[in-house]
């Protein structure tokens, strides 16, 4: 066989052909473009159209950015410099960024305090968000609310310390009474103990107003993006536990608790947030005796928290409803009591299912904080609509200021959304 073969075939290759690069159309950028942009004639048309519109958009917007004017002190000078050309007047940001971030009245030399509070927020919220960090850091997170209050509002450090002592004392009273005679007694003793400590603490801190005190800043002076961040952070972190309680209450077999939770949730969800804010601003003032002016921010926080808690409760109820009945029965069969089976079996699974919904509510809530501008609070939108856009220097400006506001909100909301996706991947235990 081999002989014939050797004689009939003119050439036999005895070495391997060196590997050639794949054809140009099957590799690299060209392949990617062919597959993703021009895979069929319909897609090709769509691609070309999209490119056309993108280019048109860039051409239209680019000079607005490129000709942007910085450093003028009012709009008229800005227009003179532009001299009829298209261009943004970014000077408004330069001139008024302090008011956009901190509001019009927060004292200039105290800006480091909210900034420090914000930096600490990132540090202290990390152990809550990332479970791989050492658990002991959670102490920081627990301390944070009191520290942040002291930093932002100022005054003596005794107030937050006393409030904290009240919580700690209440917690111990709760665990002691719960062990002795059940959950309800625990709750009652928490309230009683904490109130007593707060009352005494109020007397003590009232007696020493200068003890490690920062300059006091009244709530009215809070504003700008800082106010949005304050409202967003506080309301999200308060409404999450409240929402869990409401969701569990709605599932409760005790009719009164269930009734209260259902009425609360349905009532709050049936009322627009703006209405609640107007109630907070306008109506509540009539109910309090003159002189006891419950802080406006506090009233607003209560209203927004109630509002978002009702929504979060429904989201979590969805998570609870998605769990098979077997999970509840498994808890019972292990001999766990109610709070144990909730804490160890039901809630971890229900909350995991609810993450996208909760984040949705949180992002919406953060953006809803701008609604406080309608009750004449100077949050970021309020400060733009009121003092900045109605000032003699800057009336008539619009896109620059609101674009900046949109950018700030986008950064925060996008961050929250990215975190939630990461969290979902971390908690994924199935085999999809």
């Amino acid at each position, binding site marked *: 066989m081999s002989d014939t073969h050797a004689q009939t075939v003119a050439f036999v290759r005895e070495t391997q052909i060196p590997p050639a690069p794949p054809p140009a159309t099957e590799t690299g950028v060209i392949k990617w473009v062919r597959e993703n942009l021009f895979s069929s004639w319909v897609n090709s048309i769509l691609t070309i159209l999209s490119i056309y519109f993108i280019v048109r958009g860039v051409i239209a917007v680019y000079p607005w950015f490129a000709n942007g004017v910085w450093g003028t002190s009012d709009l008229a000078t800005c227009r003179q410099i532009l001299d009829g050309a298209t261009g943004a007047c970014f000077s408004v940001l330069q001139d008024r960024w302090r008011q956009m971030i901190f509001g019009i*009245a927060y004292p*200039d030399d105290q800006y480091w305090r909210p900034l420090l509070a914000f930096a600490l927020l990132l540090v202290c919220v990390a152990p809550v968000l990332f479970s791989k960090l050492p658990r002991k850091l959670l102490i920081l997170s627990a301390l944070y609310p009191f520290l942040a209050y002291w930093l932002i509002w100022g005054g003596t450090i005794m107030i937050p310390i006393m409030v904290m002592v009240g919580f700690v004392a209440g917690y111990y009273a709760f665990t002691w009474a719960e062990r002795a005679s059940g959950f309800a007694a625990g709750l009652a003793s928490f309230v009683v103990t904490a109130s007593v400590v707060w009352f005494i603490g*109020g007397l003590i801190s009232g007696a020493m107003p200068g003890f490690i005190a920062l300059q006091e800043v009244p709530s*009215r002076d809070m504003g700008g993006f800082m106010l949005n961040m304050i409202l967003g952070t506080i309301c999200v972190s308060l409404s999450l536990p409240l929402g869990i309680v409401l969701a569990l209450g709605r599932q409760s077999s005790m009719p009164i608790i269930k009734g209260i939770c259902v009425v609360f949730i349905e009532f709050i969800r049936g009322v627009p947030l703006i209405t609640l804010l107007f109630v907070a601003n306008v109506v509540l*003032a009539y109910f309090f*005796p*003159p002189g*006891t002016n419950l802080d406006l921010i506090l009233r607003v926080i209560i209203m927004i928290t109630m509002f978002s808690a009702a929504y979060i409760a429904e989201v979590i109820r969805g998570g609870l409803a998605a769990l098979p009945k077997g999970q509840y029965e498994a808890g019972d069969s292990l001999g766990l009591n109610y709070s144990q089976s909730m804490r160890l079996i039901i809630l971890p699974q229900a909350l995991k299912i609810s993450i996208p919904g909760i984040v949705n509510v949180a992002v919406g809530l953060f953006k809803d904080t701008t609604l406080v501008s309608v009750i*004449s609070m100077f949050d970021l939108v309020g400060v733009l609509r009121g003092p900045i856009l109605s000032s003699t220097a800057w009336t008539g400006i619009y896109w620059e200021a609101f674009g900046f506001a949109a950018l700030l909100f986008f950064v925060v909301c996008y961050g929250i959304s990215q975190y939630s996706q990461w969290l979902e991947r971390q908690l994924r235990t199935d085999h999809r």
Partner: protein
Amino acid sequence: MKKSVILGALTVAGLAAGAAGAATLDDVKARGTLNCGVTTGVPGFAEPDANGVWQGFDVAVCRAVAAAVLGDGNAVEFVPTTGKTRFTALASGEIDMLARNTTWTFSRDVDLKFEFTGVNYYDGQGFMVPKDLGVTSAKELDGATVCIQTGTTTELNLADFFRSNGISYEPVPIETGSEAVQLFTAGSCDVYTTDRSALAAQRANFANPDDYVVLPEVVSKEPLGPLVRHGDHEWGDIVRWTLNALITAEELGVTSDNISEMSMEAGNNPEINRLLGTEGTLGEMLGLDAEWAKRAIMVGGNYGEVFANNIGESTNIGLARGLNAQWTDGGLIYSPPFR
């Protein structure tokens, strides 16, 4: 959030506090600051500058009252209010007085139970249109879309005007002046109507102010002035006579420049002496000291100076005195005598 808030919320001790009641003057003195309601921003009338310090024509009234009562024109807590929240803020006691471009009307005075303490600016509602529209009179505006701020008297005047002239319009409701400007210059409405002072102020900052005209018609009387709650006449008197002191000072030629000289000792003009407290006991009658009016005038000058510095012809706003000249110059600004 002060400690009283925390305690109040926790112990509801506040319920016992009750009966703080009528004496606004005592409240203000005890607090050490005057809570004065202003707009969230109207160019020239009330606006915080780049450092967050409130400036403007209405703001000057607040500062004058604070100076008269507390001796410090900066002892004012400015509470921004919108057209919707202003009256409840005053009625609920959140603010002691409102100096916010508020038109003195019968129903606000009588039905809402407020007391207007005078007029610091006589305004009237006008219309602004683009020149291209080719309109020379408001009566030609049949079928026009009109940008209008909600919750104001201008909204009602507009309806009255169009109804009495038998023509129709389509309102475009908006919340703040800056939004109105944006919509109007973008062409979302044919006509923008508000007080003529505001029209002039906003037009000054348009990209092309010459492309727009303010129509000659003045369709309403808008006497703007500070107001207080019914029921505390002593406080109302203080606000009223502080404003009158500024007006009288202009009439008598007392300015921020010469006031310290004039108030050194009693001069030849008895009314100036009574005003500045070098003679008589007018301050005492108000429950204040003798130099109350002097302090009020020293903060921002007399009425004419306040006008010139904030909205007068030398400013960007560029309003002429017009109706707001002293009565001696043919205007309506007139103060009862200090006697």
